[in-house]
């Protein structure tokens, strides 16, 4: 064991001083300075001197690490280390130090110094937790968010939690608690809080409603709004101390949306309370902060907890109490808006700015689950939304054959601003009128109903909500008004026609077919790697056996057919009925037997895979994996199946790839062809559908299925797009149905609803929101379709 002197000299070497400040509780806060008592490093020595040399070495090296950041933090660490050794393993000790350093990074050295003063239950929990990673709960959070926001927000991982109004960013990892269950709650509350920012439109104050205030601020601080910035960023930019303004805003606005959230979602309030309670301990004491920092922190504490940690000096206390009054007055209103929060922010900012010396303002960290606000990201997000709106609007105008106005963007902005009461029933329709859209009467009512539904989801109208309105307006208009069609045709040469199957194409404008219009060429898919199938099976081994088991259950089993001409047993019901018939004097049926029969499954299915350029990469690879699983499953049954692919460039060159013919076995050749599948050109859907129809026609089976895997609209490089492509495809499918073929489409285009329903009918399709699900879904869909 080391001697007292040895330990002392090591500490001195590491810390470079013999005593450290300690807060003296009853010292009066004088504004900028506060006195502290002194503690000698000697106090740390006795405990350490009890430790094994090997452990001590580790403690020294960890202490050194801390000392580089802050000496006092390291000193506290040495004081507590002997106790820590009792609680922690070597790894835990290291983690403890890491946590302290992280805390220092996030909240500054003061809370980090406190952190090392002792070991709390929380610290122990945190050290023992491995943390919950975003990727482990991504899907659940994604579904959660999609349900909450009605598909308006998606989730993604990032360094911090914030939202740009389109995507909610959540941290890579949460290790607040030991249990994953509790860590998940942190994710959940963060997600709900970001959603609240959207729902109560925190990030999109409408400056046109704040015109007087904006003018005033522009004059007072000499800064101005610009069209470069959107919503919140513009507002914050009006203040010279942008960080201070943003922090005040986040406190005031945070209180507003949390009140709304609590009122509307009782459950989440419970979770928030639990997290808030835990965070209280970590909040800094206001007496340790510079005046402006103290003011913001105290305001937050008051609005959140109703109390303040530590004491405020006279000036600061006055400012804070006035600020609190302003904020609470606003919160008392029936329905405070973000614009109200902006007004209060400006007033509080002015108070702070005029009454409290600038001192050093290093910024303020809000409660962790409230995340951060990134005004520049908000601008980026809103700009993107507006751009999409402009595009949608343009396409509607085009459909309506209205001349496109020169400045569509300012038109949209104007319309957004002009909607007088965004909460009024029909406000979005008003928005459409203000855009100068002449909505046909018969569409209006339908639109209104849809809008009402949207309003239910979002509560308040914001830019992306209006976008949905545009979406549905577009859809309705398209359905009601026949679009213009471009006249553009390609000549088919003799060369094109050679070895080709010629197919007609439907021209819906003329209401007739263009005869022998497309040349389709059959090609055998080139072989790819022979390892692909193997790898896929390895990757999905669990799934493969599950699917196989499920498919085994679909195998034809024996069943009793009632009322048969002959069979193994007498059908008593039929017999009684016949007897009654005889008695009644009518001709009885002679179908009196039960036949034990193998239930027939006489099914032929053709898979037709879209190999257009847009499927390049991850989409096609996943489709291939799905096909492998599908084949494995089908091998269990006696269903006949074939796999084809298609792609092409203009009507002269519709390529039809053969991967597996009906009469080919699922062997190495086929496996290699699956591996060889690749993305090529465009999506002319009509000709390949007609070709498969021809093939299926020649295949004997009672039930014939055509399953199309697609990722987008029918679209070719020539005039085969828009309504023409859709109508021709629809026609080709009708032709197939006439030949008793049942088409079904699986698409991963989440925007597909519009057109896919037109082509495949109400029940003839399914939209997958995520390609990754295809390998699981494809066999499942097949199973459901055929049982």
């Amino acid at each position, binding site marked *: 064991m080391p001697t007292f002197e040895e330990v002392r000299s090591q500490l001195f070497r590491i810390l470079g001083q013999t005593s450290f400040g300690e807060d003296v509780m009853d010292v009066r806060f004088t504004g900028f300075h506060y006195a502290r008592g002194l503690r000698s490093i000697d106090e740390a020595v006795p405990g350490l001197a009890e430790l094994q040399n090997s452990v001590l070495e580790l403690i020294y090296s960890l202490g050194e690490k801390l000392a580089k950041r802050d000496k006092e933090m390291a000193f506290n660490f040495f004081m507590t280390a002997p106790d820590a050794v009792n609680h922690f393993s070597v790894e835990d000790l290291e983690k403890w130090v890491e946590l302290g350093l992280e805390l220092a990074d996030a909240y500054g050295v003061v809370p980090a110094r406190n952190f090392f003063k002792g070991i709390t239950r929380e610290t122990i929990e945190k050290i023992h937790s491995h943390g919950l990673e975003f990727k482990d709960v991504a899907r659940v959070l994604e*579904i959660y968010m999609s*349900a909450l926001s009605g598909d308006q927000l998606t989730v993604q991982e990032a360094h911090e939690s914030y939202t740009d109004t389109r995507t909610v960013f959540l941290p890579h990892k949460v290790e607040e608690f030991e249990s994953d269950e509790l860590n998940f709650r942190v994710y959940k509350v963060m997600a709900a809080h970001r959603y609240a920012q959207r729902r109560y439109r925190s990030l999109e104050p409408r400056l046109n409603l704040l015109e007087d205030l904006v003018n005033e601020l522009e004059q007072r601080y000499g800064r101005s709004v610009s069209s470069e910035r959107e919503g919140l960023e513009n507002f914050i930019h009006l203040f010279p101390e942008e960080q201070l303004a943003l922090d005040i805003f986040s406190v005031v606005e945070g209180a507003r949306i949390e009140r709304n959230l609590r009122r509307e979602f009782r459950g989440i309030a419970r979770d928030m309370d639990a997290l808030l309670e835990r965070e209280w301990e970590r909040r800094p004491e206001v007496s340790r902060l510079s005046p402006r920092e103290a003011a913001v922190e105290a305001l937050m504490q008051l609005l959140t907890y109703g109390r303040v940690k530590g004491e405020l000096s006279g000036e600061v206390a006055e400012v804070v109490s006035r600020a609190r009054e302003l904020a609470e007055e606003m919160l008392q209103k029936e329905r405070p808006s973000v614009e109200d929060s902006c007004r209060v922010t400006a007033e509080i900012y002015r108070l702070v700015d005029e009454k409290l010396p600038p001192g050093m303002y290093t910024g303020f960290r809000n409660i962790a689950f409230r995340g951060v606000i990134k005004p520049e990201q908000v601008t980026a997000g809103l700009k993107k939304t507006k751009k999409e709106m402009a595009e949608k609007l343009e396409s509607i105008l085009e459909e309506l054959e209205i001349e496109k106005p020169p400045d569509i963007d300012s038109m949209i902005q104007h319309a957004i601003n002009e909607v007088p009461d965004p909460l009024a029933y029909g406000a979005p329709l008003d928005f459409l009128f203000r855009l100068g859209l002449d909505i046909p009467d018969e569409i209006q009512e339908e639109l209104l*109903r849809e809008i009402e539904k949207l309003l239910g989801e979002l509560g308040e109208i914001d830019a992306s909500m209006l976008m949905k309105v545009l979406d549905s307006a577009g859809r309705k208009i398209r359905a009601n008004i026949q679009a213009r069609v471009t006249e553009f045709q390609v000549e088919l040469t003799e060369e094109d026609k050679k070895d080709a199957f010629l197919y007609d194409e439907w021209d819906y404008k003329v209401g007739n077919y263009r005869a022998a219009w497309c040349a389709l060429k059959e090609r055998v898919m080139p072989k790819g790697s022979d390892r692909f199938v193997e790898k896929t099976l390895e990757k999905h081994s669990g799934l493969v056996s599950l699917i196989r088991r499920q498919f085994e259950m679909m195998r034809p089993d024996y069943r009793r057919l009632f009322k048969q001409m002959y069979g193994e047993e007498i059908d008593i019901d039929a017999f009684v009925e016949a007897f009654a018939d005889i*008695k009644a004097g009518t001709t009885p049926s002679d179908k009196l037997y039960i036949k034990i029969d193998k239930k027939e499954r006489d099914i032929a299915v053709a898979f037709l895979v879209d190999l257009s350029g847009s499927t390049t990469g991850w989409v096609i690879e996943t489709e291939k994996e799905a096909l492998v699983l599908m084949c494995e499953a089908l091998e269990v049954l006696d269903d006949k199946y074939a796999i084809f692919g298609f792609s092409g460039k203009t009507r002269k060159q519709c390529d039809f790839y053969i991967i597996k013919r009906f009469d080919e076995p699922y062997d190495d050749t086929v496996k290699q062809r699956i591996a060889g599948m690749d993305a090529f050109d465009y999506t002319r859907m009509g000709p390949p559908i007609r070709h498969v129809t021809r093939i299926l026609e020649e295949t004997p089976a009672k039930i014939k*299925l055509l399953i199309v895997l697609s990722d987008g609209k029918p679209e070719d490089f020539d005039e085969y797009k828009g309504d023409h492509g859709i109508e021709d495809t629809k026609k080709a499918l009708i032709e197939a149905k006439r030949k008793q073929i049942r088409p079904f489409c699986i698409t991963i285009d989440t925007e597909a609803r519009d057109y896919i329903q037109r082509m495949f009918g109400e*029940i003839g399709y*399914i939209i997958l929101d995520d390609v990754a699900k295809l390998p699981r879904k494809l066999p499942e869909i097949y199973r459901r*379709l055929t049982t």
Partner: protein
Amino acid sequence: MSESRTLRVEEYVITEEPYYEPIGNEIEVFEAAYRNKLPVMLKGPTGCGKTRFMQYMAWKLKRPLITVSCHDDLTSSDLVGRYLVKGGETEWVDGPLTKAVKVGAICYLDEIVEARKDTTVVIHPLTDDRRILPIEKRGEIIKAPDEFMLAISYNPGYQSVLKDLKHSTRQRFISIDFTYPPKELEKKIVMQESGVDEETAEALVTLGEKIRNLKDKGLEEGAGTRLLIYAGMLIKSGIEPVKAAEIAMANPVTDDADMLRAIRELITTVF
């Protein structure tokens, strides 16, 4: 005996006004169809009020309502009728369809897709302007009185290709679309039917709305009004709201683990 095994027939004249909240103009459309002797198809997701609507209309039009829940063993004699032997004597027993035609009732074939195709065709002659029902066994043809009406229900959620409704059947009906009621209305319905207070009803409807957002995102069918009412009833009889919602609204709609988890999180967000 065989009748009670394969059929669930409820025949009655509804004397008390059933509780029904109109969602659009479905009542007028149905009345117009009735006046013009047109058969009607009610289309919509499960649990959105189709059956209740039929009860209401039967009451309003003062006709008895005969409901048949279709299933895949349903034969045409189950609908039309058959001879039975009783104490050595035979007796003809009308099936529900024949009964409805004879008394000029409204006959409601629920979930018609479930029935076998050869069964479905017996309704064809009743659905065009002949409005007749041939009873082969007895060599009779009954002409339907003006008061008789045929209605079927059909849930277009994606189904087996082996079971879809034939176009020749579908196109004989005028169709009325049912959707989930708008928020305020649904709240009212949930309160009325389950007896929960406004706050609970509001929460249930919010939850329903959120779950419906997942349709096509992995859920085949959102939570219908019926499920909201069930949850409400459970709550009313003392079960903890979170538990009640889980039992009535999460478990019935999916068995995908992540989906279930997310719905549970929604429940604990709302309650």
